[in-house]
């Protein structure tokens, strides 16, 4: 069964450093998403991406965050200057069409120290 692949599975970074989280969505999917989940809390929407541009973003997705689809397969989330409160599981998801459900990756656990 097709999977969404995320790398790395774990990343520890110092406060103020830049991190790039990588995702390979399912190949024929057109809609791409990033979500995060702080330990013990609910899954929160960050950003959606379609047709090579952001279609929606949340209040969490401020100027420190950016997304990119640099080629036909990868989808990345960059955090420019990490803060302690950015520590969370970050999930990438993709969907073939709207309203049919998303396929999530296994996540990247980001720890900012």
């Amino acid at each position, binding site marked *: 069964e097709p999977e*969404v692949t995320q790398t790395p599975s774990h990343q520890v970074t110092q406060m103020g450093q830049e991190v790039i989280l990588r995702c390979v969505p399912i190949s024929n999917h057109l*809609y791409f998403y990033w979500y995060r989940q702080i330990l013990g809390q609910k*899954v929160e929407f960050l950003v*959606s991406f379609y047709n090579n541009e952001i279609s*929606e973003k949340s209040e969490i997705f401020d100027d420190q965050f950016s997304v990119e689809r640099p080629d036909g397969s990868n989808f990345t989330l960059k955090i420019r200057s990490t803060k302690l409160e950015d520590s969370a599981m970050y999930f990438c998801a993709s969907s073939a069409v*709207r309203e049919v459900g998303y396929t*999530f990756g*296994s*996540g990247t656990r980001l720890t900012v120290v």
Partner: protein
Amino acid sequence: TQLLEQSPQFLSIQEGENLTVYCNSSSVFSSLQWYRQEPGEGPVLLVTVVTGGEVKKLKRLTFQFGDARKDSSLHITAAQPGDTGLYLCAGEEVGDDKIIFGKGTRLHILP
């Protein structure tokens, strides 16, 4: 702001019993999805419902979408220990390109 309330937050029952968990909102959704999430893993899609009043069955799991498309329920018949996990509902409002999750129901089935 869209808000999905799931109830109960926690449920612990004996193997073989039936249970229902609920997902409620004041918002109208174009689709509502149920996911299951294991510790340290991403949510896994169980079902998507899009039509008011729709009922979908997945083996012992029955999902219902409310007539007004504001709420949903998940009913499990004859629960088994393998059903233990976190069940999340997520809704997509008309015109949105995102789903918003509830906090989930943590289900524990005792053998």
